[in-house]
């Protein structure tokens, strides 16, 4: 009996190379509108990346001595990581609380989280002036253990590994490696526990980066509670992204999704919205408390004050209310609107802290505004991520069901 299985495995290993080669070929049409638009952007982005590495940051970015961090940090990393928060929230719900309701979207969410870290946290690489030293904090010329960024560097790496472990059963199923699938599946809960702990800290840690920018971040945004706010907001940022992304991918990959799952999908959206609504309410409440304790009433009647109110009311309170209403009336349009508003709110919040409300006294003409090349590279990163996501989702059991043999061991 055992020898039969062993023989089977051996034959499989031999076939895997052939299988992968066949899978590498594109599936489906190449000349879709999305491909036609995205391919040139990715190509241009790749050229600009080379240009940046050869010529230095100044050749490509509008960064300055006054604004050391631009959109590659403020948007790609800060926003990208917040949006990737859906992975740790949903793995908590599915693997720790064992709510089966969301099981069908867990793989897509984890894959999204993993790719977000690879690409958006990977954007740090481009932003590093001395990128060849990127591994220094890991093997350590010297460990800067007092640095918040040291913690983030380690956490990004460890979290990527944890996310990869969480997703790896899908790869094993794709390759048809049963023993490996069983082994990797047994690691999932451990990876989830580690992943949640790491996420809690580095989501907050991204906010803690600005603790020492006291006096540079506008007092309406600077508070010692930025780390807590970043963590709480990553919960609804991540869930909003799951709602938004799910709405798109459920159309794009609809052929892979079974009929029952399509039917259960609306239920799931309502459930996720409930989570968003509560997290946003907590976030809004915390912001109000911090504002009142900060005693910044006079600052409200300034241009920055109006901008602050726009963020807090237009992009936190209103989407929070819409989420509650969407749940109450089971209105998917309201839910999707709320998710988009909440996501814009996160983008604005992270950009405010890192760029817009950063050194707010500097006149408009001397302020940082991203160059077209920074924007193209950012777009290229996002589009490449979508390509990789699509490639994986078209091949591995991400949206579709696992093979029958894997379902038994699950």
């Amino acid at each position, binding site marked *: 009996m055992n020898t039969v299985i062993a023989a089977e495995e051996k034959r499989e290993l031999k076939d895997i190379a052939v299988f992968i080669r066949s899978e590498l070929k594109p599936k489906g049409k190449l000349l879709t509108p999305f491909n036609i638009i995205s391919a040139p952007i990715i190509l241009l982005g790749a050229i600009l990346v080379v240009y940046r590495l050869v010529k230095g940051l*100044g050749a490509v970015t509008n960064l300055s001595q006054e604004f050391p961090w631009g959109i590659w940090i403020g948007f790609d990393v800060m926003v990208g990581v917040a949006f990737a928060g859906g992975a740790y929230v949903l793995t908590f719900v599915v693997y720790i609380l064992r709510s089966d309701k969301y099981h069908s979207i867990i793989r897509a969410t984890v894959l999204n989280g993993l790719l977000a870290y690879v690409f958006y946290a990977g954007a740090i690489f481009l932003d590093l002036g001395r990128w060849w030293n990127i591994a220094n904090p890991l093997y350590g010329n010297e460990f800067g253990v007092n640095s918040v960024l040291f913690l983030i560097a380690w956490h990004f790496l*460890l979290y990527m590994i944890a996310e990869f472990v969480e997703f790896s059963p899908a790869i094993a199923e794709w390759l048809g490696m049963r023993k490996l699938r069983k082994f990797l599946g047994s690691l999932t809960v451990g990876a989830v526990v580690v992943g949640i702990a790491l996420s809690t800290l580095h989501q907050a840690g991204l906010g803690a980066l600005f603790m020492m920018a006291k006096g540079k971040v506008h007092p309406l945004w600077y508070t010692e509670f930025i780390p807590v706010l970043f963590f709480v907001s990553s919960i609804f940022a991540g869930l909003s992204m799951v709602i938004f992304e799910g709405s798109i991918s459920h159309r794009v990959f609809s052929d892979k999704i079974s009929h029952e799952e399509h039917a259960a999908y609306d239920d799931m959206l309502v459930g996720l919205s409930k989570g968003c609504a509560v997290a946003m309410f907590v976030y809004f409440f915390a912001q109000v408390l911090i504002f009142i304790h900060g005693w910044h009433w006079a600052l409200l009647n300034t241009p920055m004050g109006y901008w602050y109110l726009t963020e807090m009311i237009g992009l936190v309170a209103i989407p929070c209310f819409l989420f509650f209403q969407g749940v109450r009336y089971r209105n998917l349009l309201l839910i999707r609107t709320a998710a988009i508003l909440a996501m814009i709110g996160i983008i604005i919040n992270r950009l405010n802290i890192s760029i817009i409300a950063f050194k707010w006294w500097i006149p408009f003409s001397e302020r940082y505004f991203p160059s077209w090349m920074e924007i193209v590279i950012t777009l290229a990163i996002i589009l490449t991520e979508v390509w990789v996501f699509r490639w994986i989702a078209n091949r591995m059991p991400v949206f579709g069901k696992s093979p029958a043999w894997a379902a038994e061991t699950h």
Partner: protein
Amino acid sequence: MGQPHPGLVMNRGGNSNWRGEEFNLMGIDRRTFLKGLGTGIAVAVPGSSLLTGSLHAKEVVAGKEFMGVLVDTTRCIGCRSCEMACAEAHGMPVPDIGDTSVLEKTRKTSVTQWTVVNRYKTDKGEVFAKKQCMHCNQPGCVSACLVNAMKKRTDGAVTWDSNCMGCRFCMISCPFDIPKFEYNSAAPKIQKCSLCWERLTKGQKPACVEACPAEALAFDTRRELIEEANRRIYRESGKYVSHIYGEREVGGTGYLYLSGVPFEQIGFRTDLGTTSYPEFSKGFLYSVPIVLLLWPAFLIGVNTITSRKDELQSREGGKR
């Protein structure tokens, strides 16, 4: 007999002097326990490396005192000899100090100018003030650096080293906006005043101090300089405002300033407070080991409880 107490085995980890079947604490089987233990260790190891001890920069290191520079802006004549000496000492383009037109604008230090002298119009007429790295006692830039490229030396100098990653977090974290980055280089460096650290190690004074013809700059231990500054304030109380900038600002700085006019008028931020900048992220860093220990314990607990529930339900043949 002869078998160690299970509790002891637990602590010893890799010890093989026990039989698996005896190892059954609280109804958790060995496999589950080891899995949990593995997870715990996986979390605790990176966690313990993140335990924040005391900050690197202490006011007194190994019996040595921090050195500093006292800048008496009432004595500065704006000759910019210090700028020239600095450029010469560090191989940067030497400025033409005969050209006074540069004083029209308030300048900042740059990648090729570690120190600049600015002219300010004040209540007491024109006043010159030299600007450069303040060499904080507990520098934000040093605690920001994740590879210890930015160092607080035992003699007080804050210096930069080439193992830097170029992340520019030091620039974000500096209350005085001093570190400057070479954006137009493929191998960029952070440029800032090093208090002439190489010269200090040879027993020499910083180049700018040596070059000052007006005795506006004095180099000594920080303690001596504060005493000297106080002496000057007491002796000529009309001449100085009663404040030594840098004595307490951001936890104390190596560069100390005396002025005849309020410090806002000569381009100093007076809203920085007296807390050292690393303190601001300390709260977060202290929470790290706590979260890394308690959170996994809680998660594993919840995970175990929820799975027990499933077990009971299936044992009772209940509906799921």
